[in-house]
Every structure is written in structure tokens, then in C-alpha cells.
């Protein structure tokens, strides 16, 4: 909670205990003796779990992830119009030509950034974390990554950052992250 929270905002935010989904298992509910009263029955709400392991292929973008495990950042370049993509694109968005791989520099500048204090459920345990879009010299598009080693007040657009790689790859785009250069 921030220090300066007004009374009204406290009211709007309704401070309350977090709801969790580990409720009690119930195997029966009573019915009223008169069926006319069923319209007044409160809704029955059950837990409905869903989990899937997808077989996700990176397809034509796979070399990018192979690059990360070898501590190299790979982008793609259009051989025809020379447009350079920091986040790989298999075909050029402008002329439709199949692109070629090239190695990106491992230093860049922050194009924009944020610090997330909340997040999607999967990332809540990691909050707060910084997201940045990195721009590289001579490259036309940007690259989304995490910035480690800096807090909100230190981060500025234009700040120099350098890539670092996880030693134990997870074959995720987070195998690379950036730190202040």
C-alpha cells in the first residue's frame, strides 16, 4: 500500500481479505419443501479446474531460442528491403520476402519501460518487476524484455542496457534479460 492513500480511495478500494479457491467440498444441498421457493435458491457455485500442457512449437522462430542458449541474440533481416527486426519475423511485413537471421548487438537503449506492481496470476510472485522495450542501433523494431538491477525511480528512457543470459535455459524469451550498462 502506498503511504499517501486518501480516505476516499481506501473506501473505494475496500480493504479486504484475499479470496482463495481452496473451499470446502460439499456433496449435498437441501431443497425447500415447496418447489415454488426454488426461485429464491441462491446460485450454486462450484470449482471447475482446467489445466493443459500444450505442445507449443516455436516453428520458424526456433533459431532465436537456440541463440539464447548460446548467449547470442538473433534478429531477422529482409534481404530485399533491408528492414531489420529485433523480434524475429519469418517474412518481411512490408515486402513479403523470407527474412534471414543476423546477430543483434547485446547493448541497446530503453525505448520505453514500466514497473509492474501487480500482474497476471503466473507472474504475481515476481512483482514488482520491470518491463522494457529495447531499441538497438541500426535495427528497425524493438525487443520486449525484463530489466533487472534497477528500480522505478532509476529507470529512464534512453538509458543504456546490456543483455545477460540465463545459464540454465528454459527456452523462453526470458532466457535473456537486460541490466543497466
Amino acid at each position: 500500500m502506498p503511504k499517501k492513500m486518501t480516505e476516499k480511495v481506501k473506501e473505494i478500494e475496500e480493504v479486504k481479505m484475499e479470496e482463495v479457491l481452496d473451499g470446502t467440498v460439499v456433496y449435498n444441498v437441501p431443497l425447500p419443501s415447496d418447489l415454488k421457493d426454488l426461485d429464491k435458491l441462491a446460485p450454486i457455485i462450484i470449482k471447475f479446474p482446467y489445466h493443459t500442457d500444450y505442445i507449443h512449437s516455436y516453428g520458424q522462430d526456433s533459431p532465436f531460442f537456440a541463440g539464447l542458449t548460446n548467449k547470442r541474440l538473433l534478429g531477422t533481416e529482409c534481404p530485399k528491403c533491408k528492414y531489420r527486426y529485433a523480434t524475429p519475423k519469418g517474412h518481411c511485413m512490408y515486402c513479403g520476402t523470407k527474412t534471414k537471421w543476423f546477430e543483434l548487438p547485446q547493448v541497446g537503449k530503453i525505448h520505453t519501460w514500466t514497473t509492474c506492481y501487480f500482474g497476471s496470476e503466473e507472474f504475481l510472485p515476481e512483482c514488482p518487476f520491470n518491463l522494457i522495450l529495447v531499441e538497438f542501433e541500426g535495427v528497425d523494431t524493438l525487443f520486449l524484455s525484463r530489466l533487472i538491477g534497477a528500480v522505478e525511480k532509476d529507470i529512464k528512457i534512453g538509458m543504456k542496457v546490456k543483455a545477460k543470459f540465463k545459464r540454465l535455459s528454459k527456452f523462453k524469451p526470458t532466457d535473456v534479460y537486460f541490466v543497466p550498462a
Partner: protein
Amino acid sequence: MQKPQRQVYMVSGGVSKFTKARPDITFQPMVKEAYDYALQDLGIPHKKFYELVDGSVASYFSDHFQRQLMSGIMVQDYLGLCPKPSHRVEGGGATGGLCFQEAWKSVASGHMDICVAYGFETMSHVQTWKGNEFIALASDVSFDYPVGGFYSGYYAMMVVRHMYEFGTTVEQMAKVSIKNHKNAFWNPYAQKRIPDLTVEDVRSSPMVAYPLTRLDICVMSDGAAVCILASDEGVKKLQKATRQSFKPVKITGIGRGTDAMRMSDRPHGEVILIPRERPSDYKKLKYPGVHSFRAGRTAGKMAYEMTGIQEPIEELDFIELHDAYTSSEIQTYEDLGLCKYGEGGPLAESGKVEVGGQCPVNPSGGLIACGHPVGATGLMQAVFAHWQLQGTIYKHFGNGKLQIKNAKRGLIHSHAGTGTYVTVTIMERV
């Protein structure tokens, strides 16, 4: 683009009040609430309407929220519209706007004389942060989602760049939140009705993703909305069946635009100009980058050309736009050409966009205060615009505080992703 062959009208609409959760009913009766309201307002019972209606279009964003595929057909059968034709449309946050335009196409093309557009979302079936996870799956799951997929984070990065390019301030963003919550106070359909927020309230609300606080961001909702569209022939059929003349609203402009899913892929080129803008206005601006929405500009430009609008802020009486974030309302002012790029922040605090101002924006309270049950949102905007242009806000809201006096022409704007699909529709009083 050519003008359509047939004029299309919106003849009626209904909204099921947007709220945090509707555990009392499932999604089908929720849509029926809006559908029955629209029919009742038209003065026609379902059985009679069924004889005249040619088909429908269904709008909902996510199959994940309910873990139910083909929800659309379950609404179609519940409403008693089987075996008439129908299909579902989906395009993220713009799903409702796309649905409205698909229904328009069905009528404009001559394929149908009367078409129902219905939409809903039931976001309460998962907890808030799980819901954010589902929404974040509407970003590239190979390159964006795994980095920390979170839409508030994406919008925060966009507005940080907007602040850098144009000097937009968090106080200007707070003004949008204050305005929209205040408007919603008079809208009984709205989820959050707070008449007296201050800049300090907005800024001291918990930070979600710098610089966006909770009061800069719309909430998740359950809700539904329905619009009935018709051709001249369709209007005649309905008037004959109801033995009364009602006030239809003309749809005079349709526009749509797109942009790359990944923000990182957006170009840094030249501004797409609308009338009365010159290349010299934007000598140093790289466009759209991540600070502006090329899809919104494209959609607006297309709709303006079809309607013949030269100076939007002077020629539109009100706008209902997709303010999922206070920042995106400011960005959208610019995309829609209410002001030049870079002038959205000052416009937010100018009073021009307030009810009673030159061109009120989100007189209903917008997404920030009404809520955002995704598939219903774009249709809700159409219903509120319809009532504004009919001059029937008093009848539907129980008070006339938000009725724009002598409203002749309004614009609705529906927006997906980080600006991936955007629709703009212009509606006019007959």
C-alpha cells in the same frame, strides 16, 4: 471505399447492467435481459419479432472465461432465434464494435433486412489476476506473454513513451478518470459511480504498473448488450408490426484499422494525416511507435471520409470511446483527430470533453466507470449513442443529466489489444 448500397439504421437496443459478478444467472439469460429490453422498447413481443428478424451476430471475446466453446449458439437458442442464421465474431476488446459492424454489413449488403447484434462477457468466473492472465494471452505467447504478460504493463509502457514524446502528465490522465466516474454517477447501468474523485485520489490509489493506478484502469465485469439493426425495408416491417413509428438512428460511417500484435513490431514512420493536418505538423515525430494507435487513426479516417467529416471535434456532438485506460482515452483523442498528436493531454483538462463542453467524450462514463465485459462493451456504446441521438436518455436512465442537448451526430470507438483492431462507427439522428 465505395458507399454502401443500402442505408442501415439502428432501431433499438438494451443493456444488462454491468456488474462485478452475476452468479444469479448464466450468460444466456443475461443476454436475454438486454434483448427483452430492446424488444420492449420497440414495442414488439418476441414471437412477432422472430417472424421478421433475418438473423444475428454474436459477440464475446474469450472462450477461457467460461471454459465453454460456442457460447454464441447457446445464446441463439436461449433467445429463441434458432434456426435463423448467426455467427460469432471475435477481435479482443473490439469484439463488440466488430459485431456491430458485421450486423451493419449484413443489412447494408442486402443479405438481411433486420439483424440482431448481441454480446456478453462473464469475467467473474475466474479471479482478477487469472483474468488478467487470460487477457494477456491476447499477446504473442512466444515472445510477449512469457516476459510478464500483463495488459496494464503494456499500456503503461505506451503512455510512458507518450509522456516522453509529448509531455503528457499523470494529472491529465487523472482528469479523464475524474470525468468518466463523475458522468457514470448519473448512469444507472454503470458499475462504478463516483461523483467527486480528485487528482489526489487517483494518484494515491494503489499503483498497478507505473504510471497507471487502479483508478486509471477499467475493471472486469459481467454484462450483456443488444442492438437491433435494420434497412429501410426492415424499419417499415417493424413499424407495420408494432403499428407505431419509432425513432431510428442512421449509421453513416464505418471504419476499421489494424496493427501488428507485438508492440515491438510497430513502425516508426510518418503520421497518417487526416484533413486539416500537414506533414509539417509532425516533422520530428516517428509514428506510430508505441505512443499512438495507427489502427485507431485508420478507422477514424475511413469513417470520416464516408460521412464527410472534416473537423471531428466541431462536427461530432459526442463520442463514446474505448477508455480501458485513462491514457488510452488521451491517445485516442489524437488518433480520432479531436486534436493534433501531442495535444491529447491538454484536451483532457480543457473542459471541451466534459458533458456540456464542445464534444463530450464518454458521457456514459466509458469503460473506466461502466465496466468492460469485453464482448458487450462495443455494443453498449452503440446503445448509449442510440439513446443520445433519440433524445431518450431520461427515459432509459431515469434522469436527463447526461443527455447531450440536440445531439445530431455521435461516434463510437471500439479497440482491441495494444491497438490491434479498432473500429469507428458514426451514427446520426434521422
